[in-house]
């Protein structure tokens, strides 16, 4: 692989662009493939097959050829509402799992760079912040404030935008009240039931890092369930 190609790959990863690396293992030549863009002419005759594996996000050798394809997929956007203690541990776990993280908290004392170095922390109310992040169906919402005036607007936004994972912290009682409020706001049971509440897999722990682990485990589980 040429250094220039390596540099280009890293740039695309930083910009969260989806692409694939195509390598001819017979002669060592490699190039970047991007959907609907021109490909290096030496790889043109494989374009249909490359497109097929790219669409299915399958890595491997194209059958009966020496062409290897490796897909780079845009990371899942994880949006945490509440720059609380648990969020600090969540950020650490999520980083190693390559999730793209944003934290929303309208409370100035919580949403600081000092508490979350290097993380996209948005010190605004959820609706404004979420519009700024531009989430899609590949997004997950983790609501941690258990304060209705902060969590509820975020949960409503996530339901309306079909987030693939929505979880909310709080006891069973807190969650029952939350569901009732969403119902009163006109949301259907089928959508409200998609919210994981109380959030996380039951591991037993109550400490902040333990709760963070239970939440992140549930998120990873959901990612694989949907493959």
């Amino acid at each position, binding site marked *: *692989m*040429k*250094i220039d190609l*390596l*540099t280009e*790959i*890293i740039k695309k*990863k930083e910009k969260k662009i989806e692409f694939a690396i195509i*390598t001819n*293992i017979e002669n*060592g030549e*490699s190039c970047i493939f991007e959907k609907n863009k021109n490909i290096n002419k030496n790889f043109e005759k494989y374009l249909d097959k490359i497109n097929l594996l790219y669409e299915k*996000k399958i*890595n*491997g*050798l194209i059958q009966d050829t020496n062409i*290897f394809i*490796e*897909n*780079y*997929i*845009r*990371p*899942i956007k994880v949006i945490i509402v509440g720059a609380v203690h648990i969020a600090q541990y969540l950020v650490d776990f999520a980083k190693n*799992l*390559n*999730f793209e993280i944003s934290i929303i908290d309208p409370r100035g004392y919580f949403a600081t760079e000092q508490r979350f170095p290097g993380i996209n922390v948005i010190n605004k109310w959820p609706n404004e912040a979420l519009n700024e992040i531009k989430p899609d169906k*590949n997004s997950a919402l983790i609501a941690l404030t258990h304060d209705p005036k902060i969590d509820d607007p975020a949960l409503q936004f996530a339901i309306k935008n079909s987030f*693939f994972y929505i979880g909310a912290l709080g006891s069973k009682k807190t969650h029952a009240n939350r569901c009732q409020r969403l119902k009163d706001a006109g949301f259907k049971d089928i959508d409200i039931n998609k919210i994981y509440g109380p959030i996380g897999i039951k591991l037993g722990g109550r400490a902040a890092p333990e709760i963070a682990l239970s939440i992140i485990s549930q998120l990873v589980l*959901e*990612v694989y369930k*949907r*493959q």
Partner: protein
Amino acid sequence: MKNSFDEKVLEEAKDWISLDRKVVLATVIQTWGSSPRPIGSRMIINDKGDFSGSVSGGCVETAVVRECLGLIKENKKFKKIEFRVSDESAWEIGLACGGEIALFLEQIT
């Protein structure tokens, strides 16, 4: 739904190159049986013998480092290697898991 569980080895390779090290990239291109790391898993090796990332569960990494150092020494650009249980060298570097893997080694030039 898929996430790219990315181990940042390419970024690390770039850092090594900027420190004037020669770097070989090893990528799992085929697997058979119960190989521990999926296709696309990567490992980087430099001319000092440092390595990062993985292509198996620790079963063949030592051998891969040796192969890559050989590639740098002979100044070859790339090479394909396979590890099979049935190899004569199985005792030393075979995959204890019973799987088989093919790797593509390439120098970053």
